[in-house]
């Protein structure tokens, strides 16, 4: 007895996928030996407004990709919120954990700011800084703070959308002014990147912390009754 899905469709799909992967690996190794993108990008790093090659690719040469990544995060959070209200959360932390959290959360916020600033010329950047902010939120949630230190939902929504909003508005404005979508003018690149990264960091941090809650945050006044 042959079940068509398990015996024909899935194996042939897997074989096709494997063939595709092998073919692209073969092309990547033996492909034409002309100018590789990496060399072109490295040569243009001084024009990008930042001196860290990774940031210059993420926020300048391929800024489009990063914008879409932020949109993916936002969509993921919308999906989580559509699952319903957040769970009842953790019980209030005892004094030792509470003291540790009170010490660590400001440190995490400080290192997020450092990570954001240092991303211009050394490893770091918006995603790493946002992850640190998100970690601060997770810590607060684990210590029993309601809503992981996030504001109420009507103020959380603009915060979560801020990154995509600032990124897209900057791109559209630049297109209107004449450079093209997300093509920064020479002198302004550094500041535009910094503005976009700051907005993105705040959004990523808020999104990750909100994702950890696992549902729409409870309204402020319901803090007591549903515990």
């Amino acid at each position: 007895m042959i079940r068509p899905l398990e015996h024909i469709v899935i194996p042939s799909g897997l074989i096709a996928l494997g063939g595709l992967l092998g073919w692209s690996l073969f092309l990547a190794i033996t492909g034409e030996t002309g100018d590789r993108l990496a060399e072109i990008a490295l040569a243009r790093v001084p024009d990008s407004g930042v001196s860290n090659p990774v940031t210059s690719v993420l926020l300048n040469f391929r800024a489009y990709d990063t914008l879409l990544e932020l949109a993916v995060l936002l969509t993921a959070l919308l999906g989580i919120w559509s699952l319903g209200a957040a769970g009842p959360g953790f019980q209030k932390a005892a004094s030792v954990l509470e003291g540790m959290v009170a010490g660590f959360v400001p440190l995490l916020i400080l290192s997020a700011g450092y990570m954001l600033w240092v991303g211009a010329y050394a490893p770091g950047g918006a995603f790493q800084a946002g992850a640190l902010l998100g970690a601060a939120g997770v810590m607060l949630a684990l210590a029993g703070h309601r809503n992981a230190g996030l504001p109420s939902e009507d103020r959380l929504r603009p915060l979560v959308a801020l990154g995509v909003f600032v990124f897209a508005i900057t791109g559209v404005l630049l297109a209107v002014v004449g450079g093209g979508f997300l093509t920064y003018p020479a002198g302004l690149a550094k500041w535009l990147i910094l503005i976009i990264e700051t907005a993105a960091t705040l959004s990523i941090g808020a999104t990750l912390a909100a994702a950890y809650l696992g549902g729409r945050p409870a309204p402020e006044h319901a803090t007591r009754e549903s515990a």
Partner: protein
Amino acid sequence: MNLLLALFDLLLTLTLVGLAVVTLTSREPRRAVILFIAFGLLLALVWARLRAPDLALAEAAIGAGLSGALMLAAARRASDRNSVSTEGSNREDAP
């Protein structure tokens, strides 16, 4: 020195592959998630050895840390839901 580093790389790679296999084959979600976090931390070391510190930072913070926390929460919820459906109204809220 070079030999030592090569030995370290070999050990790292073997541990990584071993951890991946154990993670994928473990039956209990919670155990799999914890192994996955260990896998992520080792992968961050691999990125650092490949001289990609940006990726190492992102892997340690997002791949191991936050995804791990999210998946632990998901595993807890899944087991809560299972125990609710099998034991009727006996509900566990606090971890």
